[in-house]
């Protein structure tokens, strides 16, 4: 299988604006490869460098050294983002627009034709169950509804690669189930999903491969069964890999 997301010796340093403060190294030579058609879980404790990696992949932050590419194109070129969908951790959308207007705006940026846009909007609003609220401004939506709009916008261009930053964070059990269902459906369609999560049970269920990152360094990468190894579950393996002492079993 070909790698559609690749990072090579990726290093990101955040220089402090304060004179006496040291430079913070967020990523230390990260090598990562996500293959076409797989669901890839990106795990790590808070501050490990997950969001920084995603920020580099999406062109939000320029790497200090090393390289990152999507579909073989350098992430610094906007065209690299033509075939991806991105769902941020929290919902950040224009609150004065309606869901339909927001989707239409993003569809225009992707260069979708009017008929294609109309078709995708109907499909996606049905998928995320927002048909009845499509004409209401987003500011009147509940948190769950806003998250669903986010999911719809990430799928507007029928992406081959979906990048999800903690997609189930803040959702109720029903919302989580819905997101899992959508990820599973995308996998069945042969799409690639790269997502970060703290829900290790969820990762264990839906991921083909996972990577664990800690303090900016890649600690482990492989199939879930390989990572779990002799541990009881992924959570125990995760704690062991990041060097957190697990309480002894009675």
């Amino acid at each position: 299988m070909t790698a559609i997301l690749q990072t090579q010796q990726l290093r990101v340093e955040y220089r402090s604006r304060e004179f006496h403060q040291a430079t913070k190294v967020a990523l230390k030579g990260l090598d990562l490869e996500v293959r076409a058609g797989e669901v890839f879980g990106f795990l790590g404790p808070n501050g490990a460098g997950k969001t920084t990696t995603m920020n580099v992949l999406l062109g939000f932050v320029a790497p200090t050294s090393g390289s990152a590419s999507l579909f073989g194109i350098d992430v610094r070129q906007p065209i690299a983002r033509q075939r991806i969908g991105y769902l941020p951790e929290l919902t950040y959308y224009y609150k004065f627009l309606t869901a339909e207007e927001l989707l239409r705006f993003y569809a225009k940026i992707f260069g979708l034709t009017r008929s294609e846009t109309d078709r995708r909007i109907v499909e996606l609003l049905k998928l995320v169950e927002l048909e009845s609220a499509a004409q209401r401004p987003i500011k009147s939506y509940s948190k769950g509804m806003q998250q669903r709009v986010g999911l719809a916008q990430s799928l507007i261009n029928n992406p081959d690669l979906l990048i999800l930053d903690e997609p189930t964070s803040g959702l109720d059990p029903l919302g989580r189930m819905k997101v899992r269902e959508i990820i599973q459906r995308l996998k069945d369609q042969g799409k690639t999903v790269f997502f970060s999560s703290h829900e290790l049970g969820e990762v264990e269920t839906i991921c083909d491969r996972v990577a664990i990152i800690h303090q900016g360094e890649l600690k482990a990468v492989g199939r879930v069964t390989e990572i779990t190894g002799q541990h009881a579950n992924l959570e125990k393996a995760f704690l062991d890999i990041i060097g957190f002492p697990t309480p002894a079993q009675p």
Partner: protein
Amino acid sequence: MKNIFSVAGVVIKELYRRKDFYVLFIITVLICLVMASVNIFNDAKIARYLKEICLLLVWISALVIAITTAARQIPAERENRTLLPLLAKPLSRPQLIFGKFLGCWLACGLTLFCFYLFFGALSAAREHQWLVLDYFQAGLMHWFMLGIVVAMALLGSLVFAAPSSNSTICFIVIGGILFVGRHLDQVAVSMHEPLRTVVNVLYYTVPHLEFYDLRDLVIHNWPLIAWQYILLALLYAAAYILVFLLAACLVFRRKPVN
């Protein structure tokens, strides 16, 4: 270009869905209406004084709308984090800057059109004549001047962190240029070196916004300015707009958005 127009469309939508824009618009219209309806000392020429005051009000309102709209565009996107899903699309940062500029500028143009139409109708009702081309020249020059202001405020929004500080600085700089800019060369003559050179450089560097103030043309119903001079002034404005926007693109190029 398609991406630039898409971003501009959202800017315009945001502006006409905000209440503060309508408040300013309605207040200006009401004041103009009240002033146009009064007849001080039964003087027939009082209309010119009233026109002057009303046009000044239109200028102030248009400046407030242009600066406050442009100054909050990028900071609001950063603060609300709407920039993240937007830049995760195949949209380059220069396209975003140019789209924001176009949206603000077109919105200002739309506002100016309404102001001048209303003001023209009002003064025509009192003077029984309406020199449409005079109003067109004055409005067109005013619009291009606002283009420079919008581009300057956009650049400022990338340099200064808070929109309020950016707006304040923009108001001071633009006010300074309008009131003092034209006299800087004369001020320089009375100075000693090296201050003289500094002031002279400043005189030739700052955009001379006073070129675009054609209020007298409308107030005194003067004959039209030759179109070649208008064209030159528009080119001068276009050059400054381009310089400010390119500088904004340069500042924004490697700025982290998270």
